[in-house]
């Protein structure tokens, strides 16, 4: 088995989420790859645009969605720009699943609080949909999701589905004419809603500045470090702990992460 060799996959559907983010639904071209493929929420993949390069995305689909996988890509540089130019039917490469995952088994019996911002919803969507599909295993599920503007909110087509099993709270930094919801930042909304930390696990992903203030609020609500989870981001190439790029201290984000709780993060050199 060559861990550098991608599986070929066909882009089945491209969904424009926001002005700079698209979600790609892909299917492995080799039925054997498709049949053998399994993953856990929080794991990531290396996506190849052949001749351009490879880059890292979390699997935003959930293992409960069978027969395809999805990732959401924000356009920032060389490979993500090439992806944004791709069309349905194009062939790309996938190396996955990579990295660790959210400990959804350990969370059984607990309430779940998701606080996300912007593209940070991509990894959270996987674990959220997974937990919603296994609703009987978990207590109350709460989602607080915010973005800069209403146009920057991803996965709008799923909110109704989420609301069947979770309390969903949306907020934007700045509304527009059609926006009737809340205006303000995620940390402020969290403070206002003040969910109980009792028997509850919190997951927060999003821009570093948002995470910083969400953490403060979570601490104020009594959440312990080991009950707060996030995904860390470092530049990646190999995705398998060999190219030496994504380390924080002696941990490789690509192997030991990307999912960490804040107790683990406190032990790392603060260099990420």
């Amino acid at each position: 088995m060559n861990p550098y060799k991608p599986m070929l996959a066909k882009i089945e559907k491209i969904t424009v989420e926001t002005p700079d983010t698209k979600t790609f639904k892909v299917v492995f071209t080799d039925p054997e790859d498709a049949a053998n493929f399994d993953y856990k929420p929080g794991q990531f993949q290396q996506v190849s645009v052949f001749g351009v390069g490879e880059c890292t995305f979390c699997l935003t689909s959930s293992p409960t969605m069978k027969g395809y996988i999805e990732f959401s890509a924000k356009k920032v540089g060389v490979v993500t720009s090439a992806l944004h130019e791709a069309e349905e039917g194009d062939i790309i490469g996938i190396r996955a699943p990579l990295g660790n995952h959210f400990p959804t088994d350990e969370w059984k019996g607990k309430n779940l609080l998701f606080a996300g911002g912007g593209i940070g919803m991509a990894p959270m969507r996987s674990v959220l949909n997974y937990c919603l599909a296994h609703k009987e295993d978990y207590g109350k599920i709460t989602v607080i999701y915010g973005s800069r503007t209403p146009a920057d909110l991803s996965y709008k087509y799923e909110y109704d589905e989420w609301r069947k099993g979770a309390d969903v709270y949306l907020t934007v930094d700045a509304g527009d004419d059609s926006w009737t919801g809340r205006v303000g930042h995620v940390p402020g909304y969290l403070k206002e809603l003040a969910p109980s930390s009792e028997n509850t696990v919190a997951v927060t992903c999003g821009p570093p500045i948002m995470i910083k203030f969400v953490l403060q609020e979570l601490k104020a609500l009594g959440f312990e470090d080991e009950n707060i989870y996030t995904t860390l981001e470092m530049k990646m190439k190999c995705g398998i702990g060999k190219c030496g790029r994504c380390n924080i201290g002696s941990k490789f984000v690509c192997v030991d992460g990307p999912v960490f709780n804040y107790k683990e993060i406190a032990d790392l050199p603060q260099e990420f």
Partner: protein
Amino acid sequence: MKLLPKSGVAGFIKELSKTREVVAPVSDGESYAVFKSVAPGETPIIDGSRFILSPRSWFMPGYEVLFETKDGEIVDKTPETKAYATIGLYLADAHALEVFDRVFLDGDKPDPYYNARRADNAIFALVPAKKRWSVFWGMTGNVCDWKKACDVVMYDLGSEFVMEPMTDRGAELTKSLADADDSKKAAADALLARYDEGEVDVKAIGERLMWDNPKWEEVSRKCVACGVCTYGCPSCSCFDMRDDLKCGGAERYRCLDSCQHADFTLMGSGYNPRPGRMPRTRQRLLHKFKYQPEQFGMIGCVGCGRCVELCPVGIDIRKIVGGKETK
């Protein structure tokens, strides 16, 4: 133990190359010796007369195609596993391969490209007659332990090599040589003892090289971020992966990379978690002396001294590790 007179090296290599592809330092046409497959009639440079660049260039080439795409298929470019003999790397370099083994072969996703060159490779490692001024093997590990990384240890006694087989394979490949007598054995042991510096206190080094040591700023000030310290290092393994378009398809290759360069960790968003020379120098040192010991119980520097000799501004890792510049 066996004896190989220096006049017999060419013949020995000729014999060896009947069953194995021989890799050894040969002239690069300028002033260095580089590891290459030895062509028939070519004589390797193992007498200490030249600066030998690290064998990494052979085990992990600076440029290596991983796969190509052609007609919508992926063509795997993993090299075939061959029988090799690598001669004339330093004992420290042999130990550096043990570090590489941890990085590339451990875990559930071993690296097939490295493995193809490593799986059946008889290692003939050199203990040079003269210890170069920059060498500090003994500061980074127990040099006697490093013999286990070799099939044969070659002690340079001036006009001859004492050959100490460490494995069955090594014994087999040296069986035609004459036996060494006790005085030669003693001379070989005495030579290695010159490289030994006693017990290495990894913990004490780790404590000196604290992440928040205020001295990092000073230590890194001179660095011009050329990356030569890492490119020249036998145990630095970091690489980049890139794509190129090729006629009718594309290729993915990997190439050397260095933690000393800004874009090593520069992310698409523009954010860089190691934004200056200080955190990058610190990364190089801590990766070797703290993180790798934590990951697999081995210091990732083997004290070969190449970075000491190659650094254009004279940054000397020995002073940093030894505490002269970090205490």
